[in-house]
C-alpha cells in the first residue's frame, strides 16, 4: 500500500499537496490538466524531488531516506527510457544489476522478458535500430525484470500513435496488472485511464485528490477535471 502522508512538494513557485492512500495491486491513473502537478507528484514519489514536508510510505515504510534506485519502484518516463549506446538486452539487464556483462542466468531472464513483450530475437539491437513501439516494449521489459511492486509511468506511450498506444496499454495490463503490481500512470487522456486504471487520482490546481473508481470519476468528474475535460464531461 502506498501512502502519501501530508506530502508537500515544491518545484519553483509551484506547490503540490497530496494526502492519500492507494491500495496495493491497484492500477491508478493520475488525471488532470497540464501544469496541474501530475509529473511533480510522480517525481516526488520516485525520489527525484525532495518533499518540503510529509512522507511517502510504502507498506508503512518511509521511503524518504532512500535514493530513487533503492526504492521499491520502477519508472517509465515519457521518453529516453533506453540508453542509446546499449543494446536492448543490455538495457533490460540494467534492471537486474548495474553491469554490462550479465551472467548467463541474467541474460536468460532479460531475453525472456524481451520475448514476453514481443521482442524475441531483437536482443542485440540498439534503440536507434528499433521502432518507437519496440522501444516502448523494451522499456517495459526492463520494468518486468525489475520486479518492483510499484510502477510509475509518466505518459509512457505519449509519443506513440493511437493504435500503438492502445496495444501498449493492453500489453502493460497483461504483463504488469496480472503480476499484481501497483501502477501509477500519469495521463491527460481519460481514454487511457479507462483502458488501464481501476482508480483515478485527480491532480489539479496543486492538489492531488483521494483515489476514486475510474468509472465514477469519468461519469461525474469533479469541477477541476470537468473544466479540463470540457464538454466530454
Amino acid at each position: 500500500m502506498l501512502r502519501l502522508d501530508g506530502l508537500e512538494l515544491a518545484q519553483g513557485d509551484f506547490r503540490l499537496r497530496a494526502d492519500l492512500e492507494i491500495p496495493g495491486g491497484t492500477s491508478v491513473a493520475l488525471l488532470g490538466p497540464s501544469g496541474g502537478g501530475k509529473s511533480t507528484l510522480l517525481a516526488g514519489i520516485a525520489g527525484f524531488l525532495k518533499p518540503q514536508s510529509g512522507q511517502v510510505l510504502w507498506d508503512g515504510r518511509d521511503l524518504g531516506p532512500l535514493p530513487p534506485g533503492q526504492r521499491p519502484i520502477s519508472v517509465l518516463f515519457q521518453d529516453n527510457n533506453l540508453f542509446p549506446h546499449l543494446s536492448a538486452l543490455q538495457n533490460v539487464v540494467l534492471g537486474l544489476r548495474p553491469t554490462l556483462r550479465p551472467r548467463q542466468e541474467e541474460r536468460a531472464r532479460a531475453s525472456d522478458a524481451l520475448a514476453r513483450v514481443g521482442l524475441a530475437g531483437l536482443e542485440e539491437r540498439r534503440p536507434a535500430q528499433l521502432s518507437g513501439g519496440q522501444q516502448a516494449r523494451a522499456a517495459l521489459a526492463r520494468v518486468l525484470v525489475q520486479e518492483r511492486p510499484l510502477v510509475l509511468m509518466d505518459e509512457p506511450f505519449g509519443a506513440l500513435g493511437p493504435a500503438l498506444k492502445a496495444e501498449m496499454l493492453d500489453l502493460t495490463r497483461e504483463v504488469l496488472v496480472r503480476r499484481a503490481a501497483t501502477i501509477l500512470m500519469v495521463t491527460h487522456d481519460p481514454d487511457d485511464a479507462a483502458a488501464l486504471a481501476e482508480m483515478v487520482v485527480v491532480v489539479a490546481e496543486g492538489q492531488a485528490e483521494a483515489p476514486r473508481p475510474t468509472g465514477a470519476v469519468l461519469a461525474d468528474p469533479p469541477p477541476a477535471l470537468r473544466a479540463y475535460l470540457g464538454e466530454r464531461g
Partner: protein
Amino acid sequence: MPKLPGLVAAVLVAGLCLGTLLPLLRVGQGGLATADWAAFRFTVLQALLSAGLSVGLAVPVARALARRVFPGRRLLVTLLGAPFLLPVIVAVMGLLALFGRGGLLNDALGALGLPRVSIYGLHGVVIAHLFLNLPLATRLILQGWLDIPAERFRLAATLNAPIGPLLEQPMLRSVLPGAFAAIFALCLTSFSVALILGGGPRATTVELAIYQAIRFEADFSGAAQLALLQYAICGLAAGLALWLSPRALGGAGLGRAVERWDAKGLMARIADMAWIGLACLFLVLPLGLAVLNGLGGLADLPDGVAGAALRSILVALGATAMTLILALALAFQGGTLAQLAGALPLAASSLVLGTGLLLVVRPFVALSSVALPVTALVDALVALPFALRALSPALAEVEARHGRLADALGLTGLSRLRIVVLPLLRPVLGFAAGLGSALSMGNLGVIALFGGEGQETLPLLMALLMGAYRMDAAAGVGLLILALALLLFWAFDRGGRLHAAP
C-alpha cells in the same frame, strides 16, 4: 554524482597554478624592474594589436564567407579550425619561410630592387598572432552572421531595408567584443612566438621575460612576480571576456551560406572574393611553405628524431590522460569553483608552473628524471580549459537526458560513470583527447627550460635545430610534429565517434 573527485581536482589545479608560485617567491626577493614593466607594456600592446587586427580583418572575410557560395567553401571553413591544432613553432617556421630574410617576400622585394623587411620585433609578433588567430576570429564572427535568422534577411529584403544598420551592425556589436577579448587573452600568454620573433628587450612578452628570468638568471622570485603580473592581466582579460560573453567554439551549421538579396553587384562580389582570396593566401602560403620545406628537410632529420618523437608521443598521451581525468572531475563538480579552476591555467605561466613543481621535487629526485613527467603535467593543465569547455555542456546534456533514468535504475558512482556517462561522452572525450594531445605534441613549453641530453621532445629538438641554424632539419622535424599532431587528433576524434550512439 560524487563530488569529491571534483573538489580534489579543483584544489589540485588551483594548487598547481597558484601554489607553485610559493617555492619561487621564497627563493629571493626584489621588485619588478623597469624592463619588466616594458615587457608588460609590450605584452599588452601586442595583444591589443593582434586582437584588434584579427577581429578587424576577420569582419570582411567572415562577411564574404557568409554571403558567397563557391566550391571549396566547406573545406575552407573546416580549415579555419586547423590553426588551433597547429603547433605554434611550425606556424612560425612557415611565417619565416614567407616573411623571413630568405623568405619569398624578401626575395620578391629584392628582385624588384626594394629594401628587405625584417620580421623580428613587434610587427613579427603581431603577424604571427594574426596568422594564428584570424581563423578563430573569422569563425566566431561567421557564426554571428549565420545566427541571424534567415527570415530577418527575407523580411529586410521585402521591406527594402538597409541590412547593415538593421541586422549586421547589432550582430557585430554583440559578437566582436567577445571575439576580441578571447583573442586578446590568448595573445597575452604568448611564448614561442615572442621567443623566436621577438627582437630583444624591446619585443619581450611577460611569459618570455619569465623564461629569461628562470633560464638565464635563475631569478625565481622575479619569475614568480612576473607570473603574478600575468595572472593580473589575464584575470582582467578573462573578466572582460566573460562579461562580454563570447560565443562557443562550436562549428554547428557553419556549412551553409546566408541567402542575401543585397551585395549582388559586381564590385561587391569582387571585393568579397578578394578578401577570401587574400585570407586564404595569408593562411595557406606559410603552411604550404612549412610543409614543402619540411618535405625537403626529411632527408636531413637528425639522429635523435625517433627518440624525440617517441618521447613527444608518450608526453602527449600522458598529458591527455591527465587532462581528461581532471576535466571529467571538474565537469562533474560543476559550479563556479570548478569553472574558475578550469579557467585558471589559461592565465598561468606554464614555465613558472613547471619551475615551481621542479623546485618542489628537487630535494628528492634528479631533475632530469622528472622533466618529462612535469612537462606532461603542465601540458595537461594547458589543455584543461579547452577540454572542460567541450565536456561541460556535453555532460550537462547527458545528465538532463538520462540522469533520471540512471537514478531510477540505481546507477550511481562508478557504475554510472562506466555504464552511462563515459560511453555517451565518448565522442566529446575523443574530441577533447584529440585537442589535448595535439596541443601537447606541438607545445615547446617547460621542456625548453629543463630538457637534458637525451630528453628532447620534437618541439625542443626543432627549436635547438633552429638555434643552430639547421633550418632544413628543423623544417623536417616541424613537418613531423605537424603530422603527428594531426594524426593524434584524427585518431582520438575518430575513435571517439566510431560506433558511438547517434
